[in-house]
C-alpha cells in the first residue's frame, strides 16, 4: 500500500481550505425553497445527482428482477411474460433516458463545468433550472406509465408493435419527449457557457479535456435530440390520431421509424460515452501526476466522435431490411468512428507511462474503465462487421456489448468522477478502503454478469426472451450470480459515500493534486465559486502541485507561479 493515507485524519478539521463550517454553497441559503428555486449551478447539479442516482437505483432494481427471472428457462412465479417484457422495457428506458443520458453532463457537468471555467455560473442559470424541472416532469410522466399500463415495447419503441400494443406507450413516449428537451437545454447551456464564459487565459486548446467531452456531447444533444423529439411526436400522433406515417397498414413505412429513432439513438450512445471519456482524461493525468499525453489528439478525437457518430446510425439496422448499399456505408463509417476511441485509449496509456501512479479509488475506476471499455468497444467491431452482425444482432452478444460500454464505460467513469469530485462537492473525504473494496466488487461482479452473455449471445441466445432453451441456463445462472455481486458492490459504494457525508474527514481544497481550476477554491466552494478570479493556466500542469502532509492535500509549489494557494 502506498503510504499516502487519506483514510486517517491527517490534517484535522478545517485544514487546507475546508469551508464546511463557513460560508459555502451548501449553507448559503437555507430551507427547502432555497434549493427548489436555486439558480446556483452547484445546487442544481446536486439535485440532479440525487434524482439521477435514484433512477439508477430504480433501473437497477428492474435489472435484478430480470436477472432473477432468468435463473430458470421456463415460466416463473416471479413474473409472467408480459411483466417480463414490461420489466426490460422499463429497465432500458429508465437507464437510458432517465439515468445515463443526463447522468454525467447534468449532475457532474453542472457542478464542475463553471468551476472548470473559473466562472460564477453557467450562461443561462434559469434555463438550467428549467431543464432540471423538465427532467422531473418528464420522469414523472414516463414513470406514470408504470401505473397506467407499463410499456412493453423495448426501449426502442419499434413500430408497428408500439402502435398496436395495448400498453400506455403515449405516457412513456411523452415523458421521453420532455426529457429530450431537458437534455437539449442542458446542451445549449453548456455550449454557450464554453463559448462565452471561458476566462481569457483559457484558449480552446487549454481547456480541460472534460470540457471537450462535454462540448462534443452538447453538440450531439443539440443536433440529434430534436429528431428524437419529432419521432416521438409522430409516434404519439400515430397512436392517438392514427396518422399512419410509420404504419404499413396505412401506407407508412416502419423502417423509416427505425431511421428516425437511430438517427438520435446512435449519437445518444456517444452522448453517454463522451463525457465519460472526458472524466477519464482528467483522472488519468491527475492520478499519474503527469501531463496528459497528446492533448490535441484527445481533444480532436472528441469532436471527431461527435461528428462521425451522426453517420453510423444504420448499423443498428443491418438486418432490419435496410438496403445493401446503406449497409455498406454504415458499416464502413462504424469502423471509422472506432478510431478516435482507439486513439484516446492509447493516449491514456501513454499518460500512465513513467507517471507516478496513485491507486486511489478514482484511479481504480480508471483502470476498470480501460479494461471494460476495451472489451465493450472491441466487441463493437464484431457488431460492425456486416456478416458477423447478421449472426449477433439482437442476441445477448449485443446486450453484453452495450452493457460493457454503458456500464463498463460510462457508469464506471461516472463513479470514478463521483469519487473524484465528491470532496469538492461536500467537503468530506469518503473512506478509501471501502471505496476500493466497492470498486473491486463492482469490477468482478460486472464481468461475471456480462462476459457470460457474450458467450451465450454468440451461441445464439436471442435477447428480450422470457423463455429460453435450457442449453443456456448455466450461463444465465452465472450471469445472475454476477449481477448480485455487482449489486452488493454498488450498495457498498453508495453506503460508503453516504456515510462520508456525516463521518467523513473534512476535505482539503485539493485532495488529489489536480491542476484544473475547481481545485483552487475551497471544498465545498462558496456561493460565487471563487473568492477571487482564478488564473487559468495549463489544466494538466499537475506537477506544479505538491503534497502537504499537514493538510492532507496538495498545495501549489511556491516558486512555480503564484504563492501556495492561500
Amino acid at each position, binding site marked *: 500500500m502506498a503510504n499516502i493515507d487519506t483514510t486517517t485524519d491527517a490534517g484535522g478539521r478545517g485544514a487546507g481550505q475546508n469551508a464546511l463550517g463557513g460560508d459555502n454553497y451548501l449553507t448559503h441559503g437555507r430551507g427547502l425553497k432555497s434549493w427548489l428555486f436555486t439558480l446556483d449551478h452547484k445546487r442544481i447539479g446536486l439535485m440532479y445527482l440525487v434524482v439521477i442516482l435514484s433512477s439508477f437505483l430504480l433501473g437497477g432494481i428492474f435489472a435484478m428482477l430480470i436477472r432473477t427471472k432468468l435463473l430458470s428457462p421456463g415460466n416463473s412465479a416471479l413474473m409472467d411474460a408480459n411483466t417480463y417484457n414490461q420489466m426490460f422495457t422499463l429497465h432500458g428506458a429508465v437507464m437510458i433516458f432517465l439515468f445515463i443520458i443526463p447522468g454525467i453532463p447534468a449532475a457532474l457537468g453542472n457542478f464542475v463545468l463553471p468551476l472548470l471555467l*473559473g466562472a*460564477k455560473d453557467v450562461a443561462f442559470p434559469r434555463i438550467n433550472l428549467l431543464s432540471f424541472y423538465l427532467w422531473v416532469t418528464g420522469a414523472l410522466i414516463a414513470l406514470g406509465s408504470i401505473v397506467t399500463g407499463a410499456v412493453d415495447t423495448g426501449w426502442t419503441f419499434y413500430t408497428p408493435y408500439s402502435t398496436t400494443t395495448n400498453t400506455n406507450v403515449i405516457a412513456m413516449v411523452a415523458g421521453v419527449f420532455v426529457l429530450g428537451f431537458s437534455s437539449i437545454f442542458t446542451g*445549449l*447551456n453548456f455550449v454557450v457557457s464554453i463559448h462565452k464564459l471561458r476566462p481569457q487565459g483559457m484558449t480552446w486548446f487549454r481547456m480541460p479535456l472534460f470540457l471537450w467531452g462535454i462540448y462534443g456531447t452538447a453538440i450531439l444533444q443539440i443536433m440529434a435530440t430534436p429528431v428524437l423529439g*419529432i419521432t416521438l411526436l409522430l409516434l404519439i400522433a400515430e397512436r392517438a390520431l392514427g396518422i399512419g406515417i410509420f404504419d404499413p397498414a396505412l401506407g407508412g413505412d416502419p423502417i*423509416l421509424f427505425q431511421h428516425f429513432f437511430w438517427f438520435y439513438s446512435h449519437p445518444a450512445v456517444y452522448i453517454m460515452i463522451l463525457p465519460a471519456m472526458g472524466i477519464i482524461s482528467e483522472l488519468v493525468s491527475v492520478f499519474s501526476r503527469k501531463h496528459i499525453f497528446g492533448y490535441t489528439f484527445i481533444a480532436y478525437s472528441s469532436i471527431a466522435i461527435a461528428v462521425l457518430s451522426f453517420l453510423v446510425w444504420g448499423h443498428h439496422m443491418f438486418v432490419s431490411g435496410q438496403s445493401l448499399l446503406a449497409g455498406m456505408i454504415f458499416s464502413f463509417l462504424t469502423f471509422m468512428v472506432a478510431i478516435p476511441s482507439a486513439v484516446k485509449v492509447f493516449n491514456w496509456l501513454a499518460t500512465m507511462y513513467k507517471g507516478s501512479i496513485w491507486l486511489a479509488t478514482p484511479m481504480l475506476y480508471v483502470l476498470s474503465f480501460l479494461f471494460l471499455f476495451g472489451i465493450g468497444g472491441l466487441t463493437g467491431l464484431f457488431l460492425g462487421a456486416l456478416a458477423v452482425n447478421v449472426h449477433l444482432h439482437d442476441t445477448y452478444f449485443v446486450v453484453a456489448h452495450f452493457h460493457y460500454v454503458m456500464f463498463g464505460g460510462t457508469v464506471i467513469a461516472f463513479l470514478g468522477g463521483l469519487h473524484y469530485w465528491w470532496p469538492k462537492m461536500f467537503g468530506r473525504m469518503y473512506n478509501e478502503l471501502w471505496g476500493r473494496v466497492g470498486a473491486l466488487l463492482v469490477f468482478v461482479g460486472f464481468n461475471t454478469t456480462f462476459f457470460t452473455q457474450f458467450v451465450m449471445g454468440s451461441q445464439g441466445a436471442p435477447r428480450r426472451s422470457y423463455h429460453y432453451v435450457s442449453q443456456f441456463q448455466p450461463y444465465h445462472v452465472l450471469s445472475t450470480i454476477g449481477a448480485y455481486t455487482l449489486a452488493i458492490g454498488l450498495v457498498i459504494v453508495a453506503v460508503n459515500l453516504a456515510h462520508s457525508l456525516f463521518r467523513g474527514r473534512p476535505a482539503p481544497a485539493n485532495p488529489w493534486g489536480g491542476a484544473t481550476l475547481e481545485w483552487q477554491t475551497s471544498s465545498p466552494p462558496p456561493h460565487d465559486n471563487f473568492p477571487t478570479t482564478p488564473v487559468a493556466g495549463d489544466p494538466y500542469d499537475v506537477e506544479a502541485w505538491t503534497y502537504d502532509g499537514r493538510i492532507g492535500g496538495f498545495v501549489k509549489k511556491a516558486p512555480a507561479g503564484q504563492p501556495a494557494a492561500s
Partner: protein
Amino acid sequence: MLAENTREGGMTGAHPEHLAHHFDTAEQQFESGKLGMWIFLATEILLFGGLFCAYAVYRSIHPEIFVYAHRFLDKALGAINTAVLICSSFTMAWAVRCAQLGRQRALVRLLVATIALAACFLGIKYIEYQHKWKEGLLWGKYFRAKLEQPAGPPTARPTPAPTPAFNPDERSLIPPAAEGPGGLAKRGPEPLLAASPGPPKDVQVFFAVYFTMTGLHGIHVIAGMIVLALMLVRATKGEFGPTYFTPVDLAGLYWHLVDLIWIFLFPLLYLIR
C-alpha cells in the same frame, strides 16, 4: 497576472441592473443570448427536419400520391398565407429596429401588427382545415374522402368494409395457399408509377404529411404569438431601449424562423406538379 483576465472587472465591479451577475459585460450577455437562441433555432430546424425527411421519402417513392392529392389544397389561400407571414416577418424586423432605437410607440404598434398578422394566418389556416375536415380529407385512419373513382374505401382499418378492400391474392391474411410464391425472389423492380386510372392508393399518406407539417408549424405560430404577447406587455411598460432589447431581438429570431419554415412548406405542399 490578474490583469490577464478580462473577466476580472466583472467579478468585482458594480453590475448594471439588467446584467446577470455571472456576466461581465452587456456585450457578453447579449452575445450569449444570441448564440443560445441560434442554437435553439438549430434544434427547431432538426425538429422540422424529421417531417421534411418523411415528406421527402414518401414523395420520392410515391410521387403519384403527391401529384394527385395536392390538388385538394387551396393554392390561393396558401399564397395569401405566405404573404401574410412575410408581412409579419417584416413588421417584426422593423419592431426590433425600433426597440434598438428606443422608439417605444412604434415598437408597441409593430408588435401588435405582428400578432395581428399571425392571427390572420391562423384564421386562414382554420378555414383550410375546416374544408378538409368536411370532405374527409384527413390523415391515415380518418381519411374518409370520396375520390372521383370508387377505388373502394381506402384501407380503413377501424371499421373494415363488409367485403375486404384488399384483393386476397395480392395481400391476404394467410399465405396464398393455392399457389406458391412463384419466383418472387427473382422479381424485378416494378414501375413505381402505375398508370392505372383513378386515384392512386394510399392517398391518406399525403394528408398525414400535410397535417403533421402544417400542424406542427401552427403550434409554433401559436407559441410565437404567446412570446410576442409577452414582449408586447413588456414593451408597453417601456422596458426596452438601445441598451436592452435582447428579448425582442430573440423573439424576433424565433418568429423569422417560423416564417422561414413556411416559406418551404408552401411550395412543397401546395405547388406540386
